[in-house]
């Protein structure tokens, strides 16, 4: 049995989760703490990927990143090929899962008492330091929950990946796509095995992570 889809899925979803953290943390903090024009709009835009049907969202993304697309042309000029590569699967997983992280983290940041941050500031801490030593630790549960949600959503993405990365075996065929392909070919035993391995891996991973989290916080 070909285990490539599992490795690819792990690689894609871990990379996508790192990307989600890197982009989602500042955005969640911004939405939680600042009032700026267009904030309500931004908050809506963040959750839109959850609203559209994944394959349709994937199609829009494909149009954008393909060689003729607005973003694709720029990437192509820079010698970067995105559509139909594993990096497109990362993009898909990131787009599909960011909203879950951002909403959870935002709620976490909003529940942190602003006066604690204020106190740290009066003691001469920089914004950067306030965030890392006060805000984030106090919101850690929500941030962790959001990370786990986003990771699982990234791991399970089907529709967006199918459109922007394709279901190319050995290249972009992630676990969900591989399972679907096996079911379509009526190879049910292999489909069941792969499903089972995927579920077991994630169960172990999350249980391990949960234990780690309790130790730390």
């Amino acid at each position, binding site marked *: 049995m070909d285990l490539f889809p599992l490795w690819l899925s792990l690689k894609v979803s871990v990379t996508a989760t790192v*990307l989600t953290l*890197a982009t989602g943390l500042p955005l969640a903090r911004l939405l939680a703490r600042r009032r700026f024009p267009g904030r309500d709009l931004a908050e809506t835009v963040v959750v839109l990927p959850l609203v559209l049907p994944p394959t349709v969202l994937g199609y829009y993304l494909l149009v954008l990143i*393909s060689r003729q*697309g607005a973003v694709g042309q720029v990437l192509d000029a820079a010698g970067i090929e995105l559509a139909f590569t594993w990096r497109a699967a990362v993009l898909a997983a990131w787009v599909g899962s960011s909203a879950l992280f951002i909403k959870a983290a935002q709620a976490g940041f909003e529940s942190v008492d602003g006066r604690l941050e204020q106190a740290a500031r009066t003691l001469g801490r920089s914004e950067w330091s306030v965030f890392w030593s006060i805000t984030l630790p106090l919101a850690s549960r929500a941030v962790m929950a959001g990370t786990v949600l986003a990771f699982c959503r990234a791991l399970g993405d089907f529709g967006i990946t199918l459109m922007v990365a394709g279901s190319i075996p050995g290249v972009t065929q992630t676990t969900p796509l591989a399972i679907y392909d096996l079911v379509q070919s009526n190879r049910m035993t292999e489909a069941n095995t792969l499903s089972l391995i995927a579920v077991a891996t994630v169960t172990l991973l999350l249980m391990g992570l949960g234990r780690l989290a309790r130790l730390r916080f």
Partner: protein
Amino acid sequence: MTRAGLLALLLVFAPLRPADAQPVQPTLTVYAAADLQMAFGELKPLFEKVSGARLTLVMGSTGNLAKQIEHGAPADVFFAANESFVDDLKAVGAIISQTRALYAQGRIVLAFPKKSTSSLRELPDLLRPEVRRIAIANPAHAPYGRAAQEALERLGLWDRLRSKLVYGENIRHTLQFIQTGAVEGGIVALSVADVPEVTYVPIDPKLYTPLNQVAAVVRRSPHPELGAAFIQFVGGPEGRPIMKRYGFLLPGEF
């Protein structure tokens, strides 16, 4: 975090094309309609042996695959379930026109779960009250669904059966409704109907417009001659018996 984020972005989107990973064996990527899944699965090792090339099969709904090819998917050859999709790609210059070839004609059958108590013999049997749900592929975009609708309309059954219809996304999905016993009957492609859980009977081909299935080599393909060779292989002495066994009507037979 922002710095780490930038680094992550760079790592992910940096061009990681290994210059030294020149494959000795050429790889032919075939984009093919879902109804070919079983037949092509069998053809794959044979073609690999004859050509020395590696064959990667990407199966999906003809519409989705066509869209991806239009937007630069790394396909070498495209086998569509219906000629209209290939002709649309021809219009935008995504395929090599001279390679367009009719490779088969699809047929539809009336299928029902083996476990079901009443066996169906002809389309009007679908009117029976014990047939509560009927699966067909979505006629809005799936060629076999369109053929199913046409046959039902021709017999004046369409409006009477409409409330019982369940649409599958593609023909394999439609078959799954029947395989699992979720519906009491349905209309699927002959090419996918041969599974242990399902019994099927032919539908008169005069009742629907022939499903002309067309293949073509994609313009972007780095080895168009290999792609053309695969199209020939499917219609050649090795391919024909397999395609026939999976219920495709081959050129020269219709």
